């Protein structure tokens, strides 16, 4: 009984960490589906979102909710500008040019954050810090629960946005066929920039949800590498896949940390990634298609 409760707790903690990976992966997937670019700077954009929230909440003393909303809006605006100013210029260049471009941008963001906020870890108090929920015999941190609930709410909101609103449907159209969408009067470029904005905003949400659990620091962006594992596991290009992949990675990582010797936990996500590529390269949720000539 002791063991079962312990296991369940690990699973919940893992799922909470996995939701964060899933949210970052969701950012990759949104951009990839729309523009066929892979944003290697997604983790660093999340880091920036975390620092924005830190500035607004801890520095300017805003209310947690107001500060969080403002930080999300600021990060989204940043994502919009990033696409409009930089990424739009490399359309038509080979895919790996975009990979390198975003990697370079990631390094620059990291340095910029280091100059602005310093290289020490920072944090701010949230309504969820150091509080627990009792669920039967289980004791759960309210922070983990808030991550899971926040992720579910965000996904529901995104689902409604993409399936019910005019703008969301325009985005779906633009990512399915750019030319046709353009002919229908959809401003494709602006739509792409808006998708970058949404994905940056999702990254900021991930950073804010994560902040009760772990400190914000400049190297937070390396979580992005774990999120790649989530995206690949879910089949790059599938939105539910990214979330499920993230949760699976999070849980496997927690269990590996508990059952396997030290050192395995750090590489779990990478091992899962390589194993996915070897065993089921199309991922859990993707449909297999061949390129037609």
């Amino acid at each position, binding site marked *: 009984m002791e063991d079962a409760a312990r296991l369940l707790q690990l699973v919940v903690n893992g799922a909470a960490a996995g939701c964060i990976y899933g949210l970052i992966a969701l950012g990759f997937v949104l951009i990839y589906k729309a523009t066929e670019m892979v944003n290697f700077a997604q983790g660093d954009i999340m880091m920036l979102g975390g620092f924005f929230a830190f500035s607004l909440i801890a520095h300017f003393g805003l209310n947690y909710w107001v500060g969080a909303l403002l930080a999300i809006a600021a990060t989204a605006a940043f994502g919009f500008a990033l696409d409009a100013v930089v990424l739009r210029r490399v359309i038509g260049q080979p895919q790996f040019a975009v990979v*390198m471009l975003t990697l370079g941008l990631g390094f*620059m963001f990291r*340095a910029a954050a280091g100059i602005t906020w310093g290289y020490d870890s920072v944090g701010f108090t949230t309504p969820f810090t150091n509080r627990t929920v009792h669920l039967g015999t289980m004791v759960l941190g309210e922070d983990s629960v808030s991550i899971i609930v926040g992720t579910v709410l965000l996904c529901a909101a995104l689902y409604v946005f993409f399936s019910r609103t005019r703008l969301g449907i325009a985005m779906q159209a633009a990512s399915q066929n750019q030319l046709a969408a353009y002919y229908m009067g959809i401003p494709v470029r602006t739509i792409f920039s808006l998708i970058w904005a949404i994905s940056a905003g999702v990254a900021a949400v991930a950073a804010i949800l994560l902040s009760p659990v772990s400190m914000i620091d400049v190297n937070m962006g390396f979580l992005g590498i774990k999120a790649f594992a989530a995206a690949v596991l879910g089949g790059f290009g599938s939105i539910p896949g990214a979330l499920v992949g993230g949760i699976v990675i999070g849980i496997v990582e927690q269990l590996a940390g508990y059952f396997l010797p030290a050192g395995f936990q750090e*590489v779990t996500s990478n091992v899962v990634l390589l194993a996915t590529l070897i065993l089921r*390269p199309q991922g859990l949720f993707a449909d297999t298609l061949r390129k037609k000539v």
Partner: protein
Amino acid sequence: MRYLFKTRYQQDLALMRHGGDRMSYGLLLVVLLLIPAVLGEFYVGELGAVFIFAITGVALMLLIGYTGLVSLGHAAFLGIGAYTNAVLLEKGVPFVITLPASGATAALAGIAIGIPTLRMSGLYLAIATLAFGSIVGTVFQKWTAVTGGFDGFAVPTPTIFGFPIEGATGVYYLSLAVLLFVLWISVNLLRSPIGRAMVAIRDSEVSAQSMGINLSLYKTIAFAVSAGMTGLSGALFAHYVRFLAPDSFDILLSIQFVTIVFVGGLGSLHGAIFGALFVRLLPQAIAIVRDYLPSAIGRMPGLEPSIFGLILVLCILFEPAGIYGRWQKVKLYFNSFPMYRRTSFRRQRAYARSERLR
């Protein structure tokens, strides 16, 4: 302008295009051979490091510039080569065997990682090599029985047929020899059917496949060759640093390698050399400039990676052909002096090419 008339088949087969090339490359080689006699220990060591980076640059150029695949984990192959060389030397194996062995080990590792990932689009290779690099880095740290972990690993001095290779000068000549070998292999590889297949894959996978090219086979060959060459350069790197630390083969080093290729100029072996010079000498330049900057900027810990990032971004946005492309433009300007037109190298309007399956 020089107009080249080919009158014999030998001219097509020759490595150098004409007498001018033979002259300039010969002069360059003589100068490089004489440098250790003239310059101080420090500069010889730095140039040796440039050669080691250039070997990796050539290896990555074959992969990125000619096959169109990006690897973000070449530091791992460098590390595999370095540790293979050092561990075998420690066991008393002669250097003439350990050097090829480190190349072979890295190539095998490349095949192992290439076979599962190269079936997918090039994007997956970038992600998979990123993961591979981080796994290998962790293995170097944790497998203390072989690598010594964070205590490091002192690399024994190699001997070739009884002659010890010592100090900066020894590493310099050794690296120069290996670099020439690697360049010779690459030039010949690129004009063989394998090289043509690689270029075809880069330009269009679909049309390459319809011409009967076995995509995954040729991609795996390219990746294995590239990893093997990086392994060779890793063996030399071990002698350059003389003391292996597991955390020196991290993602940042991989990014530096890719920067070599992008800054030097995609799709030219010259570019790999120029890029290696640039990337290897840039930290020195930063170190010199640092003293003149205000201390808030000069003492900033993350200065170097951010400058690498900035250069990468500027290069991709404004000069995708890199240093070698710029050099060709300058050359054409002088070759056709009063008649140069600004539009000669204007980039064509490009459209998004879909890799999507439907």
